[in-house]
């Protein structure tokens, strides 16, 4: 059945309203404080470490993102833990709060489609996270410049920028997941708990059990096959995808994400530790980036279908 008009009618209005709500919300303020604190702490420790150990490194700026000093993890590790929490905090009550406030039927009685409302909420959430990440990114680079006193190269800035985009895609997966559960569960508390449960699973448990599951499913004596199966299982987690993509983008000397099997002829002419061009690094992690974007789209589409079929009445 052909519907009249555009499904995006009112999209801009929904985005601006949701954006205003989120940016001015207390939960966002608290999360921002947390993120800024993390940035300051990790960058401070990283710069200290960098000054002591890798002063001659040509990619000092990137080291700010990847260097850890026990017990403080690296900045990108912190982000891999914090970004899902920010996204979940922004999305877990997006739709079910409209039910509980009894605003959904009134808003949908205006001349807009459900498409605009749902997409508007997702886009607004993504914009909010993007604004936070850009601020954080600038903060880290600014603090790093101040503390290290070394201007970054174009390659470093480009890699850091790609890392920023990957982080946004990663947050998009969690936002879409939180949005999906906010549609499925009428109770915001249930939606939050289930989403946090999945975050816990994918962050802490999945890396431990994924190889075992893969090895129990794949019956082979071939080491290559087993490693591939274990890696594939691990990559079902968005956390793995983000960590792999980030670590390779932020480390120009990294050339692979899995085990390497070298034969002597392949080593001829190779300069160990030489940086990889940025386009080559990007090519290696392209599947991970596509995986993150595809994950966001898939979760959003599932949420969209469920939302379209849902009854409006409370």
């Amino acid at each position, binding site marked *: *059945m*052909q*519907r*009249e*008009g555009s499904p995006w*009618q*009112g999209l801009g*209005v*929904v985005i601006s*309203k949701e954006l205003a*709500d989120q940016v001015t919300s207390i939960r966002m303020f608290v999360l921002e404080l947390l993120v800024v604190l993390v940035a300051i702490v990790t960058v401070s420790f990283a710069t200290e470490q960098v000054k002591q150990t890798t002063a001659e490194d040509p990619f000092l700026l990137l080291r700010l993102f990847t260097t850890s000093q026990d017990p403080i993890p690296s900045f990108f590790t912190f982000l891999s833990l914090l970004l899902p929490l920010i996204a979940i905090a922004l999305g877990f009550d997006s739709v079910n709060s409209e039910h509980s*406030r*009894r*605003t*959904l*039927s*009134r*808003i*949908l*009685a*205006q*001349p*807009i*489609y459900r498409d605009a409302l749902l997409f508007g909420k997702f886009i607004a959430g993504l914009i909010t996270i993007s604004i936070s990440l850009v601020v954080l990114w600038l903060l880290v680079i600014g603090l790093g410049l101040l503390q290290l006193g070394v201007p970054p190269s174009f390659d470093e800035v480009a890699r850091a920028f790609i890392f920023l985009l990957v982080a946004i895609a990663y947050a998009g997966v969690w936002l879409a997941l939180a949005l999906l559960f906010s549609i499925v569960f009428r109770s915001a508390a249930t939606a939050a708990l289930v989403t946090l449960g999945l975050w816990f699973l994918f962050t802490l448990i999945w890396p431990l059990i994924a190889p075992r599951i893969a090895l129990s499913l794949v019956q082979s004596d071939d080491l290559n096959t087993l490693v591939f199966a274990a890696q594939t299982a691990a990559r079902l987690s968005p956390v793995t995808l983000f960590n792999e993509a980030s670590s390779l983008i932020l480390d120009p000397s990294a050339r692979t994400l899995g085990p390497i099997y070298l034969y002597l002829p392949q080593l001829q002419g190779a300069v160990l530790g030489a940086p990889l061009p940025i386009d080559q690094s990007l090519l290696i992690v392209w599947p991970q980036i596509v995986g993150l974007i595809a994950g966001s789209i898939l979760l959003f589409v599932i949420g969209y279908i469920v939302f379209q079929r849902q*009854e*409006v*009445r409370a």
Partner: protein
Amino acid sequence: MSENVIEARDLTKRYSGVAVVKGISFAIAGGEIFGLLGPNGAGKTTTILMLLGLSDISSGQVRVLGRDPAREPLAVKRWVGYLPDQVGFYDNLTAADNLRYTARLIGLGRDEREQRIKEALVHVGLADVTDKRVLTFSRGMRQRLGLAEILMKDAKIAILDEPTSGLDPQATIELLEIIRELKHRGVTVMLSSHLLDRVQSVCDRVALFSEGNIALMGTVGELGRQVLGGGFNVEVEAQGQGLAERLAAVPGVMKVEAAGPDRWRLASDRDVRPEAAAAVVAAGGRLLRLSVEEPSLEAIYTRYFQSVSPQTGGRHAA
């Protein structure tokens, strides 16, 4: 009466194969106030949601302002205002900001938007709290804000789902007054309510819902005749000779009872006050008082449900 602005034919809604609205048909004329009555779960809200295109129609046809809400929901929703049961607003926003959001969704320009919001809030008596957060609003104020939204939208049809539910008597009176004003503006009003006496005071016609069907539909007088077997009670107080016989001869009068010295109660199938007054005057009598008592909607409602389900009649009574 104007042409129909809402038409439903064999409208059916099924959830998991179970019909909750069972092939109902009705038409509402422009400028009319039409009441939907019935116990909870009778299918009133589902019918309203189907009219708005917010719930899929299982079978049947609906036309709102000549358009199909399923195919042309945007055109329908542009001109139909909806006040849901226990209307919700964004508590963190002010009354004006809530209306601004709706106005922007409708697509009103800035100047027009501000003008309409101001007028609507004045109209419903919320001008003093324009910039107050809705969080502080009472239920009655929220209902009035909902009506302000309909006014701001310049809706041709207002669909109000239990608008007086949970309101105190004063708030109910004020709300009903606003509903009457909507009618004076030419807005067609469709409302569902459990407060039968209140509905009776504003509705031109009512439809009585029962288990997904429209059991009865018409004016209160028509339903009174249909269910109670009678209609209007006209009270005449007059002085003169042979007035009882004269009044009994008035067309439409079924019974004349003495209600006291110089007082008679006429049971009639319609409002016969003009004819009764003429009969008194024609008999050389002196008319002192003339009043009419319509059949009570509550009595119709209770009697109907008792007749269709004696076991549950009491439960259904509002």
